[in-house]
């Protein structure tokens, strides 16, 4: 009986959640500072602090302010956005293997952004997020429209997303092949999910939408709990499921698309961060979403830092590092959650 009575005492979820959030924030700050210090020119922590707060002593204004700080800010923004997007999509599709990548959003965003860069090079880069959003939305809209008219299950919806992703992916391949080598090498790096060469201009064009969308995602967290109960139960609890599903997928699509526009395709963040968060705090999205966002920030900042630190002056894309860390972890998670999650 002792095991049973143990579960009858309330775990201190609220306190634990708070402690965890604070710990994650500290971790993110530490990782961010570290990422400022590593790269082709290693910079000691003291110099970083001096530079950031304009204190006396040695400063490295140019490298930090012009190059590493905007990268770090973008890593935080995109990491949080991708994690939120992935969490929403996993809850809506009700499958732990779903992610923005799977639904074709990333490929759609990538294709449209590439069209802008390779086919219309005269259009300024400021329009990249918009182009990416149109691409991401095109992919998502197709999936949603089909789902709406055919009254499809979440599972079938994900499959169509996969197929749409393949179509856009084929378009990306075609564009890369027909454009000549010098044009396509920068997009190639971008496609692997890299923060290389990102500047304040990229922060300027992306921070407002990302912050606003993240806030909306957090506000909708309780709806996600209800959606995760399945269409029938959620309807019984008074939710207009098709409409909410549409709204949530819209938010998730925009979050992922804007991220793709500024940091390229980092497929694994949207898949991994929600899993880690769920393991840490369980399935209540009011706590799980902020935790996932922080985990996403941590992952991207670390991946970017490691990518720069591993073999300077060569940079390995953050997306590749994330995939390298993520793959074994992902396989482990998938093998250990075989039966309970999807039925």
């Amino acid at each position: 009986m002792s095991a049973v009575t143990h579960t009858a005492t309330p775990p201190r979820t609220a306190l634990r959640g708070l402690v965890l959030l604070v710990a994650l924030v500290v971790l993110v700050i530490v990782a961010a500072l570290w990422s400022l210090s590593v790269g082709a020119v290693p910079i000691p922590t003291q110099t970083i602090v001096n530079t950031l707060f304009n204190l006396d002593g040695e400063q490295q204004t140019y490298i930090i302010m012009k190059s590493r700080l905007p990268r770090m800010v973008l890593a935080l923004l995109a990491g949080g956005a991708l994690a939120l997007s992935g969490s929403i999509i996993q809850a809506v599709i009700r499958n732990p293997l779903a992610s923005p990548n799977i639904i074709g959003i990333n490929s759609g965003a990538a294709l449209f952004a590439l069209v802008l860069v390779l086919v219309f090079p005269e259009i300024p880069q400021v329009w990249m997020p918009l182009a990416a959003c149109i691409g991401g939305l095109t992919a998502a809209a197709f999936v949603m429209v089909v789902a709406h008219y055919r009254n499809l299950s979440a599972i079938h919806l994900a499959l169509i997303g996969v197929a749409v992703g393949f179509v856009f992916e084929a378009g990306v391949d075609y564009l890369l092949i027909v454009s000549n080598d010098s044009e396509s090498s920068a997009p190639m790096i971008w496609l692997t999910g890299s923060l290389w060469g990102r500047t304040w201009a990229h922060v300027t064009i992306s921070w407002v939408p990302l912050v606003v969308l993240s806030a909306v995602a957090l506000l909708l967290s309780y709806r996600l709990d209800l959606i995760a109960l399945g269409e029938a139960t959620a309807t019984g609890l008074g939710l207009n499921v098709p409409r909410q599903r549409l709204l949530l997928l819209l938010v998730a699509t925009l979050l992922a698309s804007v991220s793709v526009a500024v940091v390229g395709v980092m497929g694994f963040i949207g898949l991994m961060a929600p899993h880690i968060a769920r393991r840490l705090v369980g399935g209540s999205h009011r706590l799980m979403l902020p935790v996932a966002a922080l985990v996403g920030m941590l992952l991207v900042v670390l991946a970017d830092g490691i990518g720069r630190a591993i073999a300077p002056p060569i940079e390995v894309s953050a997306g590749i590092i994330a995939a390298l860390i993520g793959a074994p972890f992902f396989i482990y998670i998938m093998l250990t959650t075989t039966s309970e999650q999807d039925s």
Partner: protein
Amino acid sequence: MPVAYRFALLAAAVLIAALLSLTIGQRSDVGLGNVLQLLFIDDGSLARSAVVDLRLPRSLIAALVGINLGLAGLALQAVTRNPLASESVLGINQGAALGVALGLVFPGLLIGNLDTMAIVGAVVAGAVTFGIAGGLGGRLDSMRLILAGVTVGAFSFAFVRFTFTLEDNLSRLVLSWTSADISAARFDQALPLVFWAAGGLLISSFMAHSFNILALGDGASQGLGVDPRRLRFIGAMLAAVLTGASVAAAGPVMFVGLVIPHLCRLWFGSNHRLLVPAVALGGAGLVLFADVVSKLVRFPYETPLGVICALIGAPYFLFATLRARHMA
């Protein structure tokens, strides 16, 4: 239409595609009128050399890759009982590509030659996908299978793409190879494929009856003396090996293994004894046709075969998912 007629029609289509594939190219002195003559009579001309030394190995590779990938897809669809499964959807194609890319970038990692690397990559990717989806047992969940496969595929391709960002010469080599550019193919690349394709055809024919029985479900096939786990293992291995061999020779050609078995099932029904030869013919025909398109689409420039197959196959996959009403 009787089955024999259907086969005759399919064979005729393959022959026409082969002829077109041999005829079309940048030389204006080769046409439908003289291509057969050039092929069989050695007149010592440059045109003869272009047809025999350049175009013939290329067409041969296209046809053999088509056979291998078609049979691989058929085996995968049979063992998963899922009409949407195929080596590109399950990540096996991409895993083979990763194996080759690793071999090209880190020659120290090379096990044997690139062929073995591709096969090892394909087997590992297949094992991971099947493992995530619930193993070889009957609990294989088709949704999980496809999502796991797509993830494994995306992961593998992320690394392949990463090699693009490395040294220029290497990246150009990897890029032309991952887009399955077979324009520089030679006979020595085509020869091993002949053996793989013949072996694949032989084994598939032997397994056709078991595949028919497995379609009745795990329980029923066990009752009829077919061990579903063993069959699944053999089928998946066959698919991985055939895919690996094709990828090593031509690069990752996507969706052939999905489109051809799917189309053949519409035309020949679900009996694998008919499907095996039909898929082999159809696969050869489709890739030969894609080869023709790859030469024409931006004439006189070539568009790599892999890109053409993806542009044909991806929308077809979308069409197939839209049609599949009762998934999972």
